[in-house]
């Protein structure tokens, strides 16, 4: 009955209570963390199953008639919630061993981050979206700085300045939207937005694009990401690349479809900008020596593919794009967790440091290579399926140029990921001493990497989840009626 709101409130409550729990017993902190994460995952799965039958609307404070804030869980939100649940659970288990700096604060901030991303995915209210957006931003800055190294402070500062600029633009767009529509929930905003003058609508679009685009790394606004990833702990990188960036992208997609509709003009902007984004990001990734920077640029590139697919504005495009959001989350989390293990075991941070690890840590390296092949887009992994779907959708709508550049992008990524794989399986210059790796580090990596394979072989598993997404995006009246309760 009340499970939808628990998805947001449970991690919040856990974060608030950890400080008090610590004063009673330090051992209890980890136990509570694990229990809460497990319950959270179970709740998410039950809500997602319910939402797949029929979308859920939850009125906070029992205010119906849209006086208050409502949570809306349609297929798109449900997919995001599932992604958040799976990744955050894996990362929390992984952190139990990986994190040895400011443990308590790390868990508090992680739970706040998860609550924020969850709120962003579920909320049906424009200003509420902004509040959760800022919670996510602030906890992200903090988690970047948590290792207290020089690189982390600089990364965090850069992130903070860019983040505040982006927050300012989003807030500006939201208040302008309120002025011209007189409402804040998505349904009434979407219904009244068409009456606004053309110039105002264009400005609002530009501000949303700049604001969210800074956060999901459109190409000229992406400069913060590689620096941030360098200084941050690998567990945060996995969360950031997997769900934080995706949440901003989700919010942008939701707003564009509801407020503006995917008109030809907006669609073309997104398609070509997406193509530029992934080409530039792939080229930059090729020049990197640091593993985390390389993966960071690769994350930016995947955003380009998703924008392209969404910009097509067709049913197949949306399915392909949202499927790629889900797949990229799984692949990037696996890669970053793998990099985290490499740096934990032998202190590797550059591609050259990986030499010979394929022999001394065969299983982890295998899991890592699976995710690498998947993200390049080779069959039979999940990355291949979603990239193929994007290609097909672009071909159908006769964006031949865009369709042509998708395999080009894959080739580029093949070039730099091959460097990584080659380093893994080349003979080391000297013996490597490997620290023993706890199962809590290994199991989440294995499971996520296995998921990449399974989703590639049996794509039908997730199809049930995403096949309804276009229904609520393409025809915004479906979403509006759902929220209005008609």
């Amino acid at each position, binding site marked *: 009955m009340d499970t939808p709101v628990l998805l947001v*409130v449970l991690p919040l*409550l856990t974060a608030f209570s950890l400080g008090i729990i610590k*004063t009673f017993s330090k051992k209890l902190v980890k136990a509570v963390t694990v229990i809460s994460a497990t319950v959270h995952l179970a709740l998410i799965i039950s809500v997602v199953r319910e939402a797949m039958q029929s979308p859920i609307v939850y009125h*906070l*404070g029992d*205010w119906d008639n849209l*006086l208050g804030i409502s949570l809306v869980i349609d297929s798109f939100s449900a997919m995001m919630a599932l992604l958040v649940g799976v990744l955050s659970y894996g990362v929390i288990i992984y952190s139990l061993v990986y994190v040895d700096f400011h443990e308590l604060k790390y868990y508090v901030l992680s739970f706040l981050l998860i609550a924020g991303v969850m709120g962003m995915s579920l909320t049906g209210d424009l200003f509420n979206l902004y509040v959760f957006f800022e919670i996510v931003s602030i906890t992200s800055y903090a988690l970047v700085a948590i290792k207290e190294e020089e690189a982390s402070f600089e990364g965090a500062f850069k992130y903070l300045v860019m983040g505040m600029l982006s927050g300012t633009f989003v807030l500006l767009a939201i208040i302008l939207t309120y002025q011209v529509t*007189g*409402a*804040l929930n998505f349904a009434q905003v979407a219904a009244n937005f068409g009456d606004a003058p053309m110039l105002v609508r264009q400005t609002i679009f530009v501000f949303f694009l700049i604001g969210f685009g800074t956060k999901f790394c459109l190409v000229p606004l992406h400069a913060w990401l590689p620096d941030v990833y360098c200084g941050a702990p690998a567990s945060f990188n996995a969360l950031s690349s997997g769900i934080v960036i995706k949440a901003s992208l989700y919010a942008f997609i939701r707003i564009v479809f509801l407020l503006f509709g995917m008109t030809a003009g907006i669609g073309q902007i997104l398609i070509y900008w997406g193509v530029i984004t992934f080409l530039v990001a792939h080229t930059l990734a090729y020049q990197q020596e640091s593993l985390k920077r390389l993966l960071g640029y690769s994350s930016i590139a995947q955003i380009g593919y998703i924008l392209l697919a969404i910009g097509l504005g067709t049913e197949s495009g949306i399915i392909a794009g949202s499927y790629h959001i889900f797949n990229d989350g799984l692949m990037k989390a696996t890669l970053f967790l793998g990099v985290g293990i490499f740096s934990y075991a032998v202190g590797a941070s550059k591609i050259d440091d990986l030499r010979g690890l394929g022999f001394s840590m065969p299983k982890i390296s295998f899991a890592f290579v699976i995710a690498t092949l998947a993200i390049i887009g080779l069959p039979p992994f999940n990355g291949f399926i979603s990239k193929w779907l994007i290609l097909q959708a672009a071909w159908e709508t006769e964006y031949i140029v865009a369709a042509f550049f998708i395999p080009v992008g894959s080739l580029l990524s093949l070039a730099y990921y091959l460097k990584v794989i080659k380093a893994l399986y080349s003979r080391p210059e000297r013996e490597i001493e490997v620290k023993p790796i706890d199962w809590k580090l290994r199991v989440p990596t294995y499971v996520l990497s296995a998921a990449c394979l399974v989703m590639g072989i049996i794509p039908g598993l997730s199809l049930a989840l995403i096949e309804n997404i276009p229904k609520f995006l393409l025809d915004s009246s479906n979403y509006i009626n759902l929220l209005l309760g008609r």
Partner: protein
Amino acid sequence: MRKFASLIIVVLLSGLLLMTFLSLSTADYDLSEHYINHGAEETKALNLVTAILFDYRAFDTLGEATVVFAVASTIAFLVPKRTASMISARFSIIMQQTTSLLIPFLFMIGAYIIAYGHISPGGGFAGGVILAVITILITVTFGIRYSDRQVRPEIKSFMESFGAMGFVLLGFIGIVLGGNFLANANSTLDLGVKGELISSGIIPHINLMTGLKVAAGLSIMFNSLIKEE
């Protein structure tokens, strides 16, 4: 060159902003009309801003409280653990006596603004800031060691967690009473008479929790930032 490019960007953006402002249209503000005409009746809170913040859009306020919580806990770990002396300005006895004289009054104003947040201007955030001023004043006049001895940091972080948890737990009252999360005006709670101190259901209690949280959070932030290595 850099300055010139920035100037162009800035002028373009400001120009766009100004043009947008001048062509802004208005809409039917049904939502705010409803709040103005029925808000006080529905929530029994005379302060409509409080009614919106703590009832209609209480979920936003929970997020806001979360932001303060996140920032306070971040700053607490970012700054040095060692309590070194702050750049000490030695104040005269006049300053110290005046401060000690002021504190009870400040406490009263803060408590009043929190408690009467639903019937007069004010609320948890404003009152909480005034309460935080007390510890800030103590820190500035008597030094950080004295301030941390008077109100120990552990107590402050306990208060902060307590306030935040209290907010969430008050939200669960709605669920216990068979409604939704944070239900107040629409639950079976007795809202009392409009304009009385004990009225409008959980709103004053949420105000109190927010006040505690903000006061503790801000004083943690200030005391942490002022420490020097």
